[in-house]
């Protein structure tokens, strides 16, 4: 059992929890994720480690309540426990002194980027962070990013915060005006694809963190396979970060939609049923 120490709503439908997991905290590196299962009947879902405190022995997970499992997870308050958490899984982000780095985060993609930002700053890189969302309310952790980034740009679709428009517009200006060495983009898949298409002609190295369906997350089942430069790779062990310019985004979009009906069914059943307490166990 892994106890929830703190819970915080950071944006509408977006929750951050700090969980007691000392061994995972100690081994966490930027780019890693965990696989968790809330209770005996739960499914195993991957979540990026958004922050960790090795001394305190905790990890922070940030998630958007979009499916049955995340809804149920969002209902667990501090003091309650999560049944299973395994990790840290996946490759660490390649961190070194690059020069000027640009991080592009869409919505809760910021969760993945935050440890990367901290690690890049430890290596004395110059980091510009672009956070994008539909509206101001959905921008996550702007204050934390401001604390570490050299510069933070916010873009919203409706102009309610920062500049009105898409992250790619802001990114394009930066690439054209500065010698950007690497772009790391995490967020909705179409956003990552758009960033990838934007940077390709400039030849700027671009990394994205993919979020395919996973089962156990340790390379045993192949559920998470993605197509990278025409080759099948298991995202849970060989990723989840890949060179954006090699990712077959269309295939990933298709595979991500595979269980849509089941997800809707589970959600409907969950909303209808008054929990008899098993989700809290």
């Amino acid at each position, binding site marked *: 059992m892994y106890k929830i120490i703190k819970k915080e709503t950071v944006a509408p439908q977006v929750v951050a929890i700090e969980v007691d997991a000392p*061994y995972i905290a100690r*081994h966490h590196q930027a780019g890693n994720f965990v696989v968790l299962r809330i209770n005996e009947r739960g499914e195993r879902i991957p979540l990026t480690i958004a922050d960790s405190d090795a001394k305190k022995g905790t990890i922070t997970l940030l998630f958007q309540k979009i499916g049955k499992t995340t809804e149920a997870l969002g209902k667990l308050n501090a003091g309650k426990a999560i049944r299973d958490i395994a*990790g840290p899984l996946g490759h660490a982000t390649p961190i070194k002194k690059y020069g000027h780095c640009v991080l592009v985060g869409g919505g809760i993609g910021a969760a993945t980027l935050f440890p990367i930002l901290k690690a890049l700053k430890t290596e004395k890189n110059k980091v510009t962070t672009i956070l994008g969302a539909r509206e101001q309310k959905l921008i996550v952790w702007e204050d934390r990013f401001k604390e570490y980034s050299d510069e933070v740009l916010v873009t919203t679709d409706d102009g309610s915060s920062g500049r009105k428009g898409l992250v790619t517009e802001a990114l394009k200006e930066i690439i054209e005006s500065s010698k950007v060495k690497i772009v790391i983009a995490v967020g909705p898949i179409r956003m990552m694809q758009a960033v990838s298409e934007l940077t390709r002609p400039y030849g700027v190295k671009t990394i994205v963190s993919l979020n395919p369906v996973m089962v*156990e997350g340790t390379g045993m*089942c192949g559920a998470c396979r993605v197509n990278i430069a025409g080759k*099948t790779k298991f995202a849970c*062990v060989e990723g989840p970060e890949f060179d954006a310019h090699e990712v077959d985004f269309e295939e990933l979009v298709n*595979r991500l939609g595979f269980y849509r009906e*089941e997800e809707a069914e589970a959600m409907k059943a969950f909303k209808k049923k008054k929990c008899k307490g098993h989700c809290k166990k």
Partner: protein
Amino acid sequence: MRARDPKIRNKDFKEVSLGLTEKQAVKEASRCLQCKKPKCVEGCPVEIDIPGFISALRDSDFSGALHVIRKYNMLPAICGRVCPQENQCQGRCILGRKKTPISIGALERFSADYAVKKGNTEKTPKKKPNGHKVAVIGSGPAGLTVAADLARLGYDITIFEALHKPGGVLVYGIPEFRLPKKIIAREIEYVKSLGVKIKLNWVVGRTQTVDELFEEGFKAVFIGVGAGSPRYMSIPGENLNNVYFAAEFLTRVNLMKAEQFPKYDTPVKKAKKVAVIGGGNVAMDAARTALRLGAKKVYIVYRRTENEMPTRLEELEHAKEEGIICKFLSNPKEIIGDDKGYVKAMICDEMKLCEPDESGRRRPECSGKEFTLDVDQVIMAVGQASNPILVKSIKGLKLWGGGYIKIDEDGSSNIPGIFAGGDIATGAATVISAMGAGKRAARAIHTYISSLKKVRKR
């Protein structure tokens, strides 16, 4: 052995084989010739005293029979159900030359089940704790065996398991209808009763490294992490929706209970016409699971013929009885998708058999003809490879064949204190061979730690 009606059992997940009654068991045991030089024992990877336990059964000494088996085999209820007996003990039985060999597997299973039915709790003599800690990584048959054998000798054992449930392939791979989960649970309870601790959700190499285990005071480490990484064929269409690896398909159902979705949260796609590629136990299990999930037609697509199939004979027979259609000499070459990216058909080459290859099996070759199977789901069961997470995390560990651990006969690796066995050392094999490897490694670990003590005393 008695089995449930194929038309009923192919719709549920309850166990197919019913086992022997007391009367049948005694009768079967009485057929045994009690050979002086028993061939069956030679065929057994752990050399169980087969005439010995059969002789006890003949005298209706059922617990005596189990006692004999237990000396050699930690998991008789499991092995009685899943061992490929026709290639091992039973395959060597003298009676088999003229008539039917003794059903040794069924008798082994009977002995183990009988004790449980009668509520006999086995008492195992345990030595007093010697204070030496040994870490066992992976809770499959290899890991469970090492843990039990060393615990009995007084060692302080912790098993580290990556998943949320112990048992390895026995829980996430082999389906309920072939090996009920309660049997595995019982064996695990037995191992725990010896004082063995099990840490779940512990991905060694990531959650903790092997070096850190040594720093924590573990004197030796046994690696039994299996060969759990699915192989693929690299044919077009492999990543279409509704193409599964057998490992994923079976894990969803066995470990996550997807057949009970939405009561359990993990879904699995139920299809109407399913093609399962492969000819081993994994393929049989996937095919029969698909059938039980409601598929109308299930094909096994195998590139050689029935004679070359590596599956247990009983599984193939059961599969056929249940209505599975075998397409032999068929080699998939492309999976076709519809405009939404879902499987709609599979194209196969028709094969013919030529000269035997390195494995001794006759090599299939294209005959030049092809055919199309109209299916909406494809499950690939074409073999496993080594999982890189742990082995790659240990610096200097000698490997072979792209990721399997190189070990001596006794299970020691090239690094002192690190031992290995089971599928991670041999490549995908069998439950009994993993168990045998565990037994040998337990002896080697005992010798190794004893020698450390001597050095220190000097």
